[in-house]
């Protein structure tokens, strides 16, 4: 596929016909669907001709932390990065189905991607502060939208740093480079940067994989504090982390034709203590993966 093709074709519209609705209902529980902030229905994703994710139905409950776990290559990052359309930049990527946030279909052609990304923040695997000052990092998203009076800007920046439990450590050097911070501090700065634009959803793509255990626990503490005010979705390789921090857990696995599929989803306690699917049990008890 050439670039011209992928540019001119709306990414959300799939040229491959979607399979007819699954004969048996997907592993979605009805209670979650009722309280969902964000819902995926019949989600598919392709990289070129390769089907990477097949028919995922998932509901993310408002204010909850949902963990997506599964072995490498099961499509969990693809699912996460499709929500805020970060995969649009990849040549040949296409998504089908729907992802609905408060009634708006994020995959549809009428979705304003720029505006949507202010509602859906993201934390990446490696801390990625901009090579500017701590203050400018947090103010970045606010300044994109337009000018704010300086006192108001300062207030929002400090509030965001406070919510990310970083304010006390940096308030004396707000105008020093962000690159002078430790890895854990940098990741909390990135969280503050995301929080500054007041998103309703935060996506986290293995946010602790580059951090030491102490910095990891601090991020997890913050996630718990944000519970209720922000809907959080975390992709993690670390099953203990999913068990510690999440309200609900979704387990994905590579299925037929190396396409990722959702195996089961439910309250974290149930998925870990009493999995419905044999494959989930095998993965959680460490029999593979």
């Amino acid at each position, binding site marked *: 596929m*050439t*670039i*011209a093709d992928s540019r001119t074709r709306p990414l959300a519209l799939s040229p491959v016909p979607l399979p007819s609705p699954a004969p048996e209902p997907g592993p979605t529980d009805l209670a979650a669907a009722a309280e969902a902030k964000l819902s995926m229905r019949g989600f598919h994703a392709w990289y070129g001709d390769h089907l990477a994710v097949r028919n995922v139905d998932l509901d993310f409950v408002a204010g909850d932390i949902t963990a997506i776990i599964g072995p490498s290559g099961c499509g969990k990052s693809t699912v996460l990065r499709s929500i*805020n359309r*970060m995969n649009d*930049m990849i*040549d040949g990527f296409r998504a089908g189905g729907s992802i609905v946030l408060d009634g708006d279909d994020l995959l549809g052609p009428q979705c304003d991607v*720029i*505006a*949507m*990304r*202010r509602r859906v*923040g*993201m934390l*990446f695997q*490696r801390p*990625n*502060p*901009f*090579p*500017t*000052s701590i203050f*400018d990092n947090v103010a*970045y*998203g606010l300044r*994109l*939208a337009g000018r704010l009076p300086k006192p108001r800007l300062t207030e929002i920046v400090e509030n965001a740093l406070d919510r990310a439990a970083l304010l006390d450590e940096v308030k004396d050097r707000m*105008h*020093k*480079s962000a*690159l002078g911070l430790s890895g854990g501090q940098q990741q909390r700065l*990135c969280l503050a*940067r*995301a929080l500054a*634009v007041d998103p309703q959803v935060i996506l986290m793509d293995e946010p602790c994989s580059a951090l030491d255990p102490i910095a990891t626990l601090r991020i997890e503490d913050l996630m718990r504090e944000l519970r209720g005010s922000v809907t959080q979705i975390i992709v993690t390789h670390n099953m203990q982390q999913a068990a510690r921090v999440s309200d609900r857990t979704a387990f994905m696995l590579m299925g037929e034709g190396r396409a990722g599929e959702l195996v089961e989803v439910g309250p974290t306690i149930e998925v870990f203590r009493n999995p419905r699917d044999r494959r989930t049990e095998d993965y959680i008890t460490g029999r593979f993966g």
Partner: protein
Amino acid sequence: MTRRLRIQDRIAIGALRGMVVVLLALLVWMVVFLLVQGWSELTRLAFYSSPPNIAGPGSGVGPQLFNTVYVLVLSMLFTVPLGLAGGIYFAEYAGTGRFTNLLRRASETLATLPSIVVGLFGYALFVQATHSHPSRLAAALSLTVINLPYMVRVSEDALRALPEGLREGSLALGATRSQTIARVLLPAAMPALITGVILAAGRVFGEAAAILFTGSNFALTAHSNYSLSPLDSGDTLAVDLYVFRTQAEPSAVPDARQYADGVAALLIVVVLLFNVGARALGRVAVRRGRHK
């Protein structure tokens, strides 16, 4: 066995050291030779203040020194924005299609053109086709043709070398691609860009062939050309060196050789000062960027 390896290792290191010494010796010998040869001119005050005169003795470099800097600045005014735009296009917008390949091939071909060919092309396009005479503007444009591919390449490489996380981090906060480029990527790439601009500018000092037809007046007019008009002609130091070593009548200009030696020494000194000064400027810019 290990003994043999150790001896091999010593020989290799010795050979490398020897080559470095030869290289350094060559460089030092050249610089010292030029400075010694040109010393009498470098220390003559009138050398800096007088205008050049191909028809008589006692020439100076005043106007050419001024003109060299003028043409350098003028050509960078074209090269930097155009080269930056090209680099941004290749690094951020162009994909891997056939059209992009064609563009890239064209840019690389441009980079390998001999500068004398660019000079003739510049003469045909900027001088003849516009029914004008050689001028600083035509010279600066020809130099831009020479430096543009290099500037495009440097800008593209500087942007590509940035971690992908910067790009994604900005986009994920709701920035457009152009906002991402202007507010995050270009500032982050600034140190590499400054180095690239310095090296491109340095090439202007040494370039004679491209200016010979497009901007030179062959030191024929005795007027001291300190004018500010881009449409006036004027020699740069490198062109002046060529003109006096090839065009001066020995009977009329007995000191042509001596004068040319002075120009060569001055070129070395200016290039050296320029590189050192510009690098210091780059360091300051980087430091300020970091602490801002």
